[in-house]
């Protein structure tokens, strides 16, 4: 994918791990990597913001199925990302949260209030097709 290749090279320039960004049918898809570092989280937010600002994206899907641990910082970052995108007029759906991760979030009293979530990536993309 030219998009993801471009985003990766952009990210590598800044060091650290890239979360691939691709556009599918006008929807920006961000796939979060497994061992998400704090730097990786911040980069994701910056990159997604930059991409949304220039492109005429219909939506943003954040695929969190690769994430094995979400603590309060990562949760908040994800929420900020979604809320930020929404403020830019871009509907955002987070998909693929693992049951274990959800369990830990709930136990800790964390949540993703105001964030649209669905189980799978297919459902997330389908949600944009329906519109």
């Amino acid at each position, binding site marked *: 994918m030219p998009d993801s290749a471009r985003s990766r090279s952009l990210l590598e320039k800044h060091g650290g791990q890239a979360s691939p960004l691709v556009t599918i049918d006008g929807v920006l898809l961000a796939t979060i990597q497994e061992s998400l570092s704090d730097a990786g989280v911040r980069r994701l937010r910056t990159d997604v913001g930059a991409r949304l600002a220039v492109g005429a994206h219909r939506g943003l899907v954040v695929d969190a199925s690769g994430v094995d641990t979400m603590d309060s910082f990562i949760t908040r970052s994800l929420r900020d990302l979604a809320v930020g995108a929404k403020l830019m007029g871009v509907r955002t759906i987070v998909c693929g949260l693992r049951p*274990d991760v959800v369990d830990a979030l709930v136990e*800790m009293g964390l949540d993703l209030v105001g964030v649209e979530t669905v189980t799978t990536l297919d459902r997330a993309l389908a949600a944009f097709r329906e519109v």
Partner: protein
Amino acid sequence: MRSRALSSQEAGTTETYRQLQAIIGRHLSALTVGSLLGQALDRAGLSASALQRADLVTLLPLLERGARLFMRSQADVDEALQAVRRLMSTDRGRSSPPARGSAFPRARASSSERAPAASSVRPAPDAVAKGEPRLELSPPVVVLIRAEEDIVKARVEARRLAESLGASSTVQTHLATMVSELARNIVLYAGAKGTLALAALAPPAVGVSITARDQGAGILNLAEVFSGTYRSRQGMGLGLRGVRKLASYFEIDTAPGKGTTVRAQLRM
């Protein structure tokens, strides 16, 4: 000569140390007590002049080893260890507070703990503690927390240990989440100078103990943090409370300028 040496040593010890002396001293001679405690402290990297209630979790397995060696019967060993465990868990939360300066001082847990006069408004310093600690199996895995990347390292180690103990993926995730919170706090608030130690619990308990230790500024508003009214600028102010919720045992030892030690255990 000798008594002078002893008394000056005595003066340089903490109350917790002297309480241990008293407990072990019920079963052994003063000389043996000194050597047993000295060896246990050495191995744990602790000292009689700085020993706090919170260190007892680390010390207990070593004390047990020493007690087995020196004491006459298993009943004596059990009794002594039981007393040490009581020392760890007494005077916590709403359990009736002893008079100031009694043989059971509170564990160092609050910024204002060192203030001479206790105010009744301030919640008990150990109101944040939760549960009963279990014995740890040494040696722990220690992850140095020096930079942001070490948070991921600590999470990976936590998962690895939990997995090796046969923990479910839910438990692994809980543990990794707790570790992530504590490691990040060290990075954010303690100048990235700290350690995160992970150890399996001693059987019959099954689980992991986490000790996050740093030499940062300490948590000055501990009561507020745990009251649920606290909102931090950097985060949601939910990290420590979340860790406590996930933990089966939780304790914080912090003082201004002296750093912070969080001990948590997760039993499976």
